[in-house]
């Protein structure tokens, strides 16, 4: 190592700068999102008074107004809550379906496993517009009105694959003979599942559920095609931006960002603590 140190230092430094630059690139618009939640778009009139603009695109002046009046646009707020509710339902359904599927795929040998695996990967290899459009074609042919239920159906459809793949990867290494041991010791099936299986697969499921929640909350393309007149948060932004882009949108964006940050830090600390306990 030491022989190459002189020669290695230079590329290593370049690498560090490069990595830093890419992280900066990733953060640039996020910085803008947060910054513009403190913006009051508009301009100053000749007489010194302020006209508030409709589009939060240009810096007007610093203001806490959007934070104080975060609920100034009740339709925006209710669209946000609606998205959260939909995401909760989607997480619930797709976690159950996905976990069952991953258990089947990891624990059992059976004919047709290859085909099932392929069916699970296929939705992930298809652009959203094709998934959304084909689902819409089905709804139109079957004469189903689009609304909350079709949104949930669509979200679960692409989330099941994510959940199954993620959970599968997490529980692949698990020694299933533990279950047999528990059964031999007299635990019934439910007890075995509850005490042995669940604790082991739970962290994987939790991670997958979190991912699914984010996917559902954020999805625009598939939802847009299958929502009818129902407005989710992204759809509300898409529609409303024609007539105005209030800074409240950025407030919601920032809040979600901070909450997810807190959640991941919490999860990380929890994991670390748990890790310490078990190693002791």
């Amino acid at each position: 190592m030491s022989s190459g140190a002189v020669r290695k230092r230079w590329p290593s430094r370049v690498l560090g700068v490069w990595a830093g630059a890419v992280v900066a690139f990733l953060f640039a618009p996020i910085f803008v999102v947060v910054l513009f939640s403190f913006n009051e778009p508009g301009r100053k009139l000749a007489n010194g008074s302020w006209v508030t603009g409709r589009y939060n695109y240009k810096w007007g002046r610093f203001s806490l107004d959007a934070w104080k009046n975060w609920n100034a646009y009740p339709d925006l707020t209710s669209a946000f809550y609606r998205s959260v509710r939909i995401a909760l339902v989607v997480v619930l359904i797709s976690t159950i379906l996905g976990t069952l599927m991953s258990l089947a795929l990891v624990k059992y040998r059976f004919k047709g496993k290859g085909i099932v695996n392929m069916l699970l990967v296929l939705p992930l290899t298809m652009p959203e517009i094709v998934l959304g459009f084909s689902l819409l074609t089905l709804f139109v042919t079957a004469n189903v009105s689009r609304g909350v239920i079709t949104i949930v159906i669509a979200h679960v459809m692409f989330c099941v694959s994510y959940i199954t793949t993620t959970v599968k990867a997490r529980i692949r290494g698990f020694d299933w003979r533990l279950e047999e041991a528990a059964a031999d010791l007299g635990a019934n099936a439910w007890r075995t599942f509850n005490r042995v299986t669940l604790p082991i697969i739970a962290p994987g499921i939790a991670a997958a559920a979190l991912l699914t929640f984010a996917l559902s909350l954020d999805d625009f393309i598939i939802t847009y095609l299958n929502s009818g007149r129902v407005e989710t948060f992204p759809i509300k932004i898409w529609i409303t931006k024609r007539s105005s882009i209030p800074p409240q949108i950025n407030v919601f964006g920032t809040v979600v960002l901070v909450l997810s940050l807190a959640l991941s830090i919490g999860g990380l600390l929890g994991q670390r603590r748990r890790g310490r306990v078990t190693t002791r």
Partner: protein
Amino acid sequence: MALGGGGGAKPVGDGLHPSNRWVPWLLLGPGLAWLFVFFVIPLFELGRGSLVRGGLSNYSNVFSDNGEVILRTFVYAFVATVLAVVLGYPLAYFIAMKAGRFKTLLLAAVVLPFFVTYLIRTLAWKILLFGDGPVVGFLHWTGLLSKNGEVLNTHAAVIGALLYNFLPFMVLPIYVSLDKIDRRLLEAAPDLYADGRRTFFKVTLPLSLPGVFAGSLLTFIPSCGDFVNAELLGGDRQRMIGNIIEKNFLRENFRPQMSALSFVLMLLILGGVLLYARVLGTEELA
């Protein structure tokens, strides 16, 4: 209950249950049914819809009407993917090999932007790229952009936004594959090759290719089907397949053509994926 797997299954050496034929299907049932009804059947419907009125001529029309857009879409997605490798690989390498105790922090930094809604993120790019915004100002100052030149409504804006929005999907898989590499291999390598560069090209890079493969798919596929970036940051000359479908998908007169266009998009991507898998020699997806 079947969940416990206790039932009638006999313990096997590896703990897998081969003999219980109906249990796995019971577990798979609900999920498979969902995928079948809401994924397989719709694709079938889409295919059928693409042959309504005009039959196969809908497909030849797809290329004559939208040839330019199809080409543009794939060029955009390809360039965005290549750039994502160029930007993302060094970052993933840095996180996996050099970051030390900052590893988790950096990983979080890569993922964090994605907790801000996709549309809001992209609107933020618009703020940055406006004619009187900071990016254009800087480019004018450096002379990289002519006095009247702009960034919005250019190929660069759309490709850049695609790159941005899907970059983490490149970084994470590459990171995972780099992180999995047995460090003893890397330590042994200098003894054999005595050169950092050769170690990288002979050991590290080949071992990380599955990550590059997965990352490329996760960047390329969504890029092909996107319409948001082209709509928000591009103009009339930057339309992608997604924009065409989005604009016309519900017009009944155009539905067969749009279905055909969607099918073409899907088949081209699947073809591309298989070819790519062939070239890279990776047999397992993701």
